[in-house]
């Protein structure tokens, strides 16, 4: 089972979801530990994997939190 199939099996990515080539490339480069961590992060919070309600520009401008 490859990374994409694991994430689909975990319910993080819907099978019918159309992935961009960049997304597929990123997923294929993940290690097993990283896939496990992704599954833990998302499964815990039950969110859609590719939830991007916020415009990309804003996501960079808002930052995260002050280090």
């Amino acid at each position, binding site marked *: 089972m490859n990374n994409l199939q694991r994430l689909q099996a975990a319910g993080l990515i819907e099978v019918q979801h159309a992935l961009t080539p*960049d*997304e597929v*490339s*990123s*997923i294929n*480069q*993940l*290690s097993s*530990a*990283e896939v496990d*961590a*992704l599954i*833990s*992060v*998302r499964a*815990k*919070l039950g*969110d*859609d*994997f*590719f*939830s*991007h*309600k*916020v415009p990309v520009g*804003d*996501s*960079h*401008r*808002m*930052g*995260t*939190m*002050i*280090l």
Partner: protein
Amino acid sequence: MNSYVPARSAGSSPLPGRSRRLRSTLSLAQGRLTDLIAQVWYHPRLAELYPEFLFASYGVTSASAPAMRMAAHECEKLVDDPLRQPLRDYYLEHAQEEQDHGEWLLSDLASLDIPRHCVFERLPYPGAAALVGSQYYWIRHVHPAAYLGYIAVLESPTGAGFLREVNQRTGISLSSMSCHLRHAELDPGHVAEFDAALDLFPLTRQQEELIAVSALSTIAHLEVLFTQLLERFQRIMNPALRGTIFTAGVPAAVAAVQL
């Protein structure tokens, strides 16, 4: 963050793809967190609730320099690890740079009539303790390189232009956003500099994985923290549940819009 870039050690080579790969991995998982952060910045009562946001931030920010120093201390215990010296130096330099950020937040809170003794009397958010506390585990019980994953996620300051828009939209004074502003303006190249350092550190594949897992864990903890913050924002609607939430007087123009 700025000047320190680790020197290339013998036998290691810079991997410009490493930071790009980490960013790519994080982009897969950051959507939910981004949504939550937007809910805070675009909250209809942000002007009133901004002190609570600063308080939540203080719980995280004031812990950064001590955590970096602890990570540096753990580096000194490493044996036969080429990261020992460069990573220690990196953490110590950046601990110095982050040293005053907590004070900046206290000043911003004071400008909103929340004196520091009130900040110290309140317990930090449980989400802040979990976020920072998990790093102590990774650093002490796995490897101090883990903290690089934490930095990768948190070293992403709010843009100065965005803050000015917030000022225009909400009436929150720029002087009350001085910590955010100084962070943005003093260190415009922070992300690129961090990524350059990450590419130069002599990391093993396992340490790279650790950094990625630490970063993903950081995202999960930040989601919890921002969820807790938004839950407290909701309590403002019910006077019986307001408790100790810090609020500010709302500028007249903003109050008129809210009505």
